[in-house]
């Protein structure tokens, strides 16, 4: 498949860093050699995700809450100079008995298809899927999954998920078809819709689950991160609780490509990044998934692993990273790629460091440290005339 060429006019990257205590916008120069921090924004707020709308290059959405205040979404049309709260944040439908679910966190934000300007999707904890058609100002529950008995069972309760609740994440929109959607549930598997969200169905064949559980039941599937190749939307990758996978559509069987990683490293992790112009190139950040699941760099030696052949072979990419005693955790949203050539890679640690590579992982430098616990890293190329630079 012909890949779109790297746009030489692509503006310099801005790294959107969401943390447990606020957000930072880290601006790079054209060479990606100098960086300066703009922030904190929302100091003290819990920021799960900060995303730029690639359709206009200027609208930022932030998924926020505090330790006490309810969850909400903030919007900025000037790259964070000014913010405005959503008039109606994501919320489940009120039930007659008042015992229904309530959004605890807005966890994930995905801009809609280019043909649907103003459309955004949000994933929440407890697991819910929401849509806005006005640029994130008002949100409504999206799709019948919230009322479907199967989906409600697969979603489980707060007891079934990550420590601060199961999360609906990795909402993907096929760039060829706005009605073709995917999402993942941290407890509940990967799901696909081909009719604009009216119906979703599990997409689980080939995936493994923890030993002793029913592989056919979505309840027991734990996807960590789902990615679609921008160069070939028929290529999906998935970092899962039980390994690393690839899926080539129209096929429906995931292949465990993580078996090709060194045995001492394994194929457990949270984030995953796919090359913007080559479906066969991808990067992961392996973490220790043995015994009690430390979820730190194996043996205290952090490394990104990259593939150039769709996961058949992997290369260790650790030049510039600490050689020992670095017990890093990188969360599922905390790794991203820019659109430049060569591709720039970025990841943020829960210990508050942001690392960057301007050469597809060949060498790494730390471009910010001493930040709060990093939850999400997105890479944006805002329109040059937008906001403060």
């Amino acid at each position, binding site marked *: 498949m012909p890949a779109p060429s790297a746009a030489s006019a692509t503006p310099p990257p801005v790294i959107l860093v969401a943390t447990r205590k606020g957000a930072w916008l880290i601006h790079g120069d054209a060479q990606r050699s100098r960086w300066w921090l703009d922030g904190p924004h929302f100091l003290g707020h819990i920021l799960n995700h900060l995303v730029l709308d690639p359709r206009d290059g200027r609208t930022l959405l932030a998924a926020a809450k505090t330790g*006490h*205040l*309810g969850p*909400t979404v903030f919007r900025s049309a000037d790259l964070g100079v000014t913010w405005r709260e959503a008039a109606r*944040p994501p919320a*489940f439908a*009120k*039930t007659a008995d*008042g015992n*229904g679910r309530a959004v605890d966190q807005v966890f994930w934000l995905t801009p809609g298809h280019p043909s649907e300007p103003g459309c955004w999707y949000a994933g929440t904890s407890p697991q819910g899927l929401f849509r806005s058609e006005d640029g994130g100002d008002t949100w409504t529950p999206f799709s019948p999954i919230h009322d479907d008995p199967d989906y409600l069972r697969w979603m489980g309760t707060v007891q079934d998920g990550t420590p601060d609740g199961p999360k609906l994440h990795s909402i993907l929109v096929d760039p060829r078809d706005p009605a073709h959607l995917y999402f993942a549930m941290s407890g509940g598997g990967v799901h696909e819709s081909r009719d604009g969200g009216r119906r979703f169905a599990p997409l689980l064949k080939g995936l493994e689950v923890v030993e002793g559980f029913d592989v056919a039941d979505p309840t027991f599937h734990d996807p960590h991160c789902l990615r679609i190749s921008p160069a070939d939307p028929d290529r999906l990758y998935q970092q899962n609780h039980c390994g690393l996978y690839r899926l080539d559509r129209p096929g429906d069987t995931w292949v465990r490509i993580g078996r090709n990683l060194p045995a001492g490293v394994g194929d457990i992790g949270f984030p995953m990044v796919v090359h913007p112009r080559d479906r066969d190139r991808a990067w992961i950040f392996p973490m220790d998934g043995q015994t009690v699941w430390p979820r730190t760099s194996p043996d205290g030696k952090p490394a990104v692993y990259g593939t150039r052949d769709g996961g058949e072979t992997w290369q260790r990419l650790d030049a510039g990273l600490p050689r020992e005693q670095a017990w890093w955790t990188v969360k599922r949203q905390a790794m991203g790629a820019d659109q430049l050539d060569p591709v720039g890679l970025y990841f943020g640690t829960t210990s508050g460091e942001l690392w960057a590579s301007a050469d597809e992982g060949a060498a790494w430098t730390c471009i910010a440290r001493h930040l709060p616990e990093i939850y999400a890293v997105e890479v944006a190329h805002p329109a040059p005339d937008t906001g403060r630079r």
Partner: protein
Amino acid sequence: MNVLIPTPLRSYTGQSMVVAHGATLGEVLADLDARYPGIRFRIVDEQDRLRPHMRFFVNGHAIRDLSHPLAEASELAIVQALSGG
């Protein structure tokens, strides 16, 4: 009635003490939301349950029920029980 606003919610009100009206706690919160849009959802969830760690005191006495009756002369304090790092 006078309503004491905690610091995390002053981005909505701009001040620590505001005036709102209503015969119940729920009505006062609705009036607050009309004056300061968005403030109620940060305090009360979509099922009309008070969010965890949100506390209300009327004339110094703790209340938890949105239907709790309030007198116009009451003083309502909204407090957040801050904990954790």
